[in-house]
């Protein structure tokens, strides 16, 4: 079977599993909604919407923790026996690429409703919506590609670290991605022309390619253990 076909099958399998256990997806959505609501209540004490930079930063922080929560489940929830079965039927390269795509889709499914609720409750200071939405989409893909392999490492490292290990390992890797994302979305917020964010977007895409390529190369070693 060719690599794209294998990736497609694995992706379908993951999506089907997710759809059958909708409580997990619902839990993540509820987590995002709950955080947004807490922010709304906290800011309403000071009378309404936060200033634009805080609005932007807060949204990315919410998304970051949703991403950490979502990535923690992907590779961790599979049992050793199931892993052994995949090992016999699929290539590791296909497994990691399918996981990255799946995580990106999952994060998009979390980010877009989250963004909608966020603008409803905390006001709408964005001046360039297409660019802002694009930066959120790109952000979902970037967070997914950076976190997938790290989540695999954290899952293998065992119970000693628990949930904190993923955050400790993932955050430093995510900082460059987040800095670029916040910059692009801040430009969209202020309605700056596309030229202002062009170089950041290109760097971000290039960074994604690097991270995905390194994950592709390293995952077979992780899997063999």
């Amino acid at each position, binding site marked *: 079977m060719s690599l794209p076909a294998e990736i497609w099958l694995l992706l379908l399998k993951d999506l089907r599993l997710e759809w059958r256990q909708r409580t997990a997806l619902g839990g993540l959505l509820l987590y995002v909604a709950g955080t947004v609501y807490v922010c709304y209540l906290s800011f309403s004490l000071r009378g309404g919407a936060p200033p634009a930079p805080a609005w932007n930063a807060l949204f990315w922080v919410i998304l970051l923790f949703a991403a950490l929560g979502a990535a923690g489940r992907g590779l961790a929830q599979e049992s050793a026996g199931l892993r052994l079965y995949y090992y016999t039927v699929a290539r590791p390269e296909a497994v990691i690429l399918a996981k990255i795509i799946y995580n990106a889709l999952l994060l998009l499914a979390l980010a877009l409703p989250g963004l909608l609720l966020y603008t409803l409750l905390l006001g709408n200071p964005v001046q360039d919506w297409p660019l802002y939405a694009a930066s959120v989409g790109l952000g979902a893909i970037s967070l997914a590609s950076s976190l997938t392999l790290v989540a695999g490492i954290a899952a293998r490292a065992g119970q000693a670290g628990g949930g904190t290990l993923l955050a400790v390992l993932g955050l430093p*890797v995510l900082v460059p991605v987040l800095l670029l994302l916040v910059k692009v979305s801040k430009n969209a917020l202020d309605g700056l022309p596309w030229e202002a964010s062009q170089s950041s977007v290109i760097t971000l895409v290039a960074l994604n390619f690097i991270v995905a390529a390194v994950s592709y190369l390293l995952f077979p070693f992780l899997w063999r253990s």
Partner: protein
Amino acid sequence: MKWWKYLAIVLLLYTAIAGLLGHVPRLAILNETERNLYFHVPMWFGMTIILGASVVNSVRYLRNPSPRLDILAHESAKTGILLGVLGLMTGSLWARYTWGTWWTTDVKLNGAAVTMLIYLAYLVLRGAVADEQQRARLSAIYNIFAFSAAIPLLFIMPRIASASLHPGMGGNPGFSKYDLDSAMRLVFYPAVIGWTLLGVWITEVACRLAFVKEKIYTKLDEKQLA
């Protein structure tokens, strides 16, 4: 003692003496603080080289696993962290006297801080895994992954950043011929070699200690089994 250790001693003595007593151009604001060029900048050079060595050993480990390569990668990373922390401290001290603050928001400063975080996370990961082979493999994978994510941060982002306070900015974080006085070069380049050699030396000693410890532990294990 190998010849390059004598070379390291000579170069660092030269750096300290010529660096503190030698001629530097009179410049406003910078004044004598520009002597930090002989200490702060070479430490970052040394850190980058030694962290590079750590990644190379991690790659070699994945291709051909052995405890020796794991120890080499681990000890190099630790020396890299030491040089990085020293680089942060000398930079911070310098910033206090030229910018008037210990720390400020700047691409280069953020890059340096995040690099330190990545390698501290590497140490945390090593601490979290009990099984030796598993620890070696996982930390090698993380080392390679984190290094490739940190390269854009350290080398590319400062170049595309629009503004930075850090010297050598304005499109290129390297030192151009306009920035660096030729008398300072005479001390700067030996200082780079000297600090890097010192890093290699520290790593070598730490590795030897780790090898001996490993040998003792395997001997003890054999004794207990017998």
